[in-house]
């Protein structure tokens, strides 16, 4: 009798210890993530650069670096969601041009910044919606759909802008340029926005059902569907989110440069996808890190900046971005093989 109660007690203990056990502890888990290693690469590059160039660690240079990558960081946050579903969005770069033009036209006509912003985001949402519907409901491959959309959007931007540059933003011009170009407490506004968005995405990926379901779809869309997750609607929402991030980046970027042409954002999708993948996203889907997006974007900008300061011709920039992209994917492959 006593034996039995003792036996039961130890069973309960074992069950409890199994329940709370985990393959790897919190810190070890962080060590295994790609964003962590990319962050280490950033620190290393920073240390090296501080010896190479006196200018590197100046406030001015830091300010420039962070502001420059914030635009890509914001877009990469949205791209992470798309890539998490094993999709891709090639239309974000040209969408920056179109939404920038739309914002410019609305504000130039004197409608003010609120309408400019709303028009920008609605345009972005519409493009995301079309992408999403074609991919989710008509089961078309994301690569082809968004490649086509890229071409359509570039063309639309040319038509809508009548191939003219816009540099007059009407009555709210000062506020518009302040948002995109100025800073609060020494940190550029766009960086603040990126930080807030990153925090929001971090929360979404960790604590929201939307985030959980997107990750599930990336892992096994069929299983997600069988579990009652509205897979098609989720995929549409993911492409809308990605486009909205591009729209937001465009809105800020136009404010920063103080002018917009329909060529703005051209080929940005490559940098954004590179940043997302360097930040740990897996093109096979199912993996996402909120922090990966800004970290990946930061590394790319840092490479650009370092080459510049080290006196290496800017022509080499794309070479190194490509190199890092390949190394990042290679490292992930090696880690995955080690884990299996």
């Amino acid at each position, binding site marked *: 009798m006593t034996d039995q109660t003792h036996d039961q007690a130890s069973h309960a203990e074992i*069950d*409890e210890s*199994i*329940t*709370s*056990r*985990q*393959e790897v502890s919190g810190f070890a888990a962080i060590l295994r993530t790609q964003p962590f290693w990319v962050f280490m690469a950033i620190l290393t590059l920073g240390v090296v650069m501080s010896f190479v160039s006196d200018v590197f660690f100046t406030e001015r240079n830091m300010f420039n670096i962070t502001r420059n990558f914030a635009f890509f960081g914001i877009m990469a946050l949205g791209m992470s969601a798309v890539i998490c579903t094993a999709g891709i969005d090639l239309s974000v770069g040209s969408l920056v041009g179109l939404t920038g033009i739309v914002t410019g036209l609305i504000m130039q006509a004197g409608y003010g910044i609120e309408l400019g912003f709303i028009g920008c985001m609605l345009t972005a949402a519409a493009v995301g919606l079309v992408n999403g519907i074609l991919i989710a409901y008509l089961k078309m491959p994301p690569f082809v759909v968004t490649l086509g959309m890229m071409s359509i959007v570039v063309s639309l931007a040319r038509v809508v802008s009548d191939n003219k540059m816009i540099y007059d933003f009407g009555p709210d011009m000062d506020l518009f340029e302040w948002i995109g170009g100025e800073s609060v407490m020494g940190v550029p506004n766009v960086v603040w926005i990126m930080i807030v968005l990153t925090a929001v995405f971090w*929360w979404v990926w*960790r*604590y*929201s*059902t939307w985030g*959980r*379901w997107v*990750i*599930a779809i*990336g*892992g*096994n869309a*069929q*299983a*997600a*569907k*069988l*579990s*009652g*997750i509205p897979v098609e609607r989720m995929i549409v929402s993911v492409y809308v989110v990605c486009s909205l991030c591009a729209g937001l980046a465009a809105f800020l970027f136009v404010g920063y440069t103080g002018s917009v042409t329909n060529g703005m954002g051209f080929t940005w999708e490559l940098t954004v996808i590179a940043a997302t993948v360097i930040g740990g996203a897996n093109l096979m889907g*199912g*993996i996402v890190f909120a922090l990966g997006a800004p970290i990946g974007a930061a590394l790319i900008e840092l490479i650009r900046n370092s080459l510049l300061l080290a006196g290496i011709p800017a022509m080499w920039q794309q070479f190194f971005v490509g190199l890092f992209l390949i190394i990042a994917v290679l490292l992930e492959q090696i880690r995955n093989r080690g*884990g299996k």
Partner: protein
Amino acid sequence: MSLLELNSITKSFGAIHALQGVDLEVSAGEAVGLMGDNGAGKSTLMKIIAGNFPPTEGAIRIEGNEVTFSQPLDAREAGIEIVYQDLALCDNLTAAANVFLGREAKKRIGPFKMLDYKTMYQKSGELFAELKSETRPRDLVRQMSGGQRQAVAIARTRLSDPKLVLMDEPTAAISVRQVAEVLALIKRLKETGHAVILVSHRMPDVFEVCDRVAVLRRGTKVADKRIDETSPEEVTGLITGAIAAA
């Protein structure tokens, strides 16, 4: 009145006739074994009951009312839970996340609803313990053994209190000890008035827990007998076709 009643269910995939005029009844508190050769149509029948796809012809009745399921969620809402043969798990999520997939536990903090990890870990831990499975709720399914994965899929059906549990080869990859636990679970389900359909190639399992056994051969039901009126030899004969029908 039976809990589930299938009337001449037919299913064709193009030229393939996976099921032809299958009738089946299951009552509350009853377990029915569904046996048949590979490709006989067992999984197809399970998926029709679980709302994965509609039958080409035929009717499904639950407690006497005809139902049409346009998606798995409809079947779940009608009180049907299923363990799929391929388990249908997301490898990149934890065991607990898989158990709760599509019906996550949430808690409210101010205006925000957020995932309630604590509740999900605890509840799935309890479900695994009930199955005597050493499955850790926090582990990713990717790194789990076949038996642990099966435990996750079975634990999922225990989240609600369904009327009917469909198990498509739930004991295919697991150890003797866990087979015993799954069989014990089926017995408990019966005692508490649940109905179970067990698809299995393991004759002893079916004869241990089922009240009836139905045999499918090339999409047609060739036998439906009480367990105490048949024998493993007869069922084997029916499956292979050595015995035409019974």
